[in-house]
């Protein structure tokens, strides 16, 4: 499926990467994976994926650092990022949003929430200014401030 949107998964847990790959492939996405922030950033620059699924705590370069690099780089600063994290503390969440993450899904997340988040960030022509709260207690965050003036 050459036209399928491409998702880059960056997570240090091999089995979770595997599971998410199965899920996303079945959901009509092409999938690339990386197991730390440095490799993830390189892959993002090289392949310009349509969205990135990003873990936070990883050995080596962590997710928040990678997010900073993505934002500082011309080639990657517009790629939407969905953060998936087992660190559910408010400050991690806030940092992720401050760095421009579109969604924050606490682990363990539901498959439907994952797919909904990716559908929203990849398929809509203009980002929804108010991402809705997904069901099942998954907290989604404030919208990024890429408002367009008419």
């Amino acid at each position, binding site marked *: 499926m050459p036209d399928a949107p491409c998702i880059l998964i960056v997570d240090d847990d091999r089995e979770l990467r595997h599971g998410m790959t199965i899920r996303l492939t079945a959901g009509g996405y092409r999938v690339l994976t990386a197991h730390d922030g440095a490799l993830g950033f390189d892959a993002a620059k090289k392949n310009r994926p349509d969205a990135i699924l990003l873990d936070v705590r990883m050995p080596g370069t962590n997710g928040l650092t990678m997010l900073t690099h993505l934002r500082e780089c011309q080639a990657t600063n517009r790629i939407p990022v969905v953060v998936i994290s087992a660190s559910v503390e408010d400050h991690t969440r806030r940092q992720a949003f401050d760095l421009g993450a579109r969604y924050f899904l606490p682990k363990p997340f539901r*498959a439907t929430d994952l797919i909904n988040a990716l559908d929203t960030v990849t398929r809509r022509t203009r980002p929804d200014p108010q991402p809705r709260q997904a069901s099942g207690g998954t907290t989604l965050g404030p919208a990024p401030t890429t*408002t367009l003036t008419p």
Partner: protein
Amino acid sequence: MTPLGPPIRVLVVDDNETDRATFRRLLERESNGRYDVLDAATAADALRRVACERPDCLLLDYNLPDSDGLELLRHLREPAAGDAIPVVFLTGGGSESVAVEAMKRGAQDYLVKDGISARVLAHAIHGAIERVNLKARLKRATESLETQNRRLAELYETAHQFVDNVSHEFRTPLAVIKEFASIINDGLAGPVTGEQQEYLNIIGNRVDDLETMVNDMLDISKLESGLLGFYRRPCALADIVDEVRPGLQRKAAGAKVGLEISVDPSLPRVYGDPDKIGRVVINLVVNAIKFSSEGQNVRIWAEPDPDASQVTIGVTDEGPGIGTENLKQIFERFRQLGSTVRSSTKGFGLGLNIARELVRLNFGDMNVRSELGKGSTFSFTLPVAEVARFMPRYLAHVQLYRGENFFISLVAVSSPSRSETVDDVEPFLQHQIRRTDLIFPVSRTSWLLVVPTNTRDLGSLMQRIQKARDEANRNRPSGQLPVLDMHVEGTWRVDDRMDEFLAAFHAALIAKESVRA
């Protein structure tokens, strides 16, 4: 006679030789050697003797040839001078103003020189020494308490850090189990039979249970260490219940328990943190399902009080009920009622305790009614979102946490520029305030903070917010947070000035609103 310790060394500082001799005579001759008397005729000599001989007490006259007694006292009380030496100041008759000044500068007592008796002198010296000793003991006790408080805070922090790490380490494997169970369940790994699907749902439900336990643990730890942030605002109960409905329906279906929800969308809005209220509903319903048998029903309901001051939200089950003797214990931590619990019941027994704490922090009360064999109703109240309804409860709540003596301040925050990021200011402020503080949006660019304090000083709060803003701005690709103007609108003592506070609060809200209009 009482046994004597080592003699008390008294330094008499006086320029008048006759007076020095009089004091020496009074102390030495009439006190059976309890005093060693040293003397000095000048300020310079006195300072030297204080430094070399560390007397136990000073008798200090105002008149000195090279300085005066007050100036010398100032030197002695400088921080660099070390531990305070007890000082009894000596004045001539009719110079009360000098005596008052000496007391202000740290003398322990003063005596008018004319006609001093040995007894009065001894009394003054012992009193002065005792006062300094008491002050030093108090200082040591305070320091030790502060050290212990710091250690406790560190312990809390360490404990919370540990729980946070445990939570993180649990979530990753849970995510993997949940993902693969759903991959099989959704047929992504080949066809699944109905029986297999049923088993996979069991796995899924137990993963949810574990997740709830991890969340409970994290919440208790955050409640305990004061880290659980609150974002209270007017909110609709029907929306909150809608939000948690899907998860609860899955849970009920899994246990083959019916779930009925009757929450009228036209109920008055309540004041509280919607996430926390949702959490309470979840905990109560999960608890009700846990104690229900197959085929029984659990009902979520809400109704306003007759005087419309509050709304009561309840969860009613048809389970075994709770005996009167157990009703008191059920909100305690790690407590589950053994005798009536189904064998499959699980969890830490934290759910009800957390629910009650969260209700308290939303200025409500938790209640339970139950009859053995007929089921239980857990209910909680929330104030209606009108200032006159929730503000008195808020003040009572703060009083409970802070004790009687505290101040309450109104702080106006505004952003002079209408930058794109102005909408990010409120969430930012929410993260900066403590859980006893309230925030009210006044207009799109201004907010009102209600802040209880033990002092009238709000400088540190405002500094903290400005510093956090600078820190946040170092790393915000989505745009810098605007400059924030902050000023204190007023501070009131809580016990007697509440009418004034409420009037000022209303005025601040209205004034800002008219400015916006």
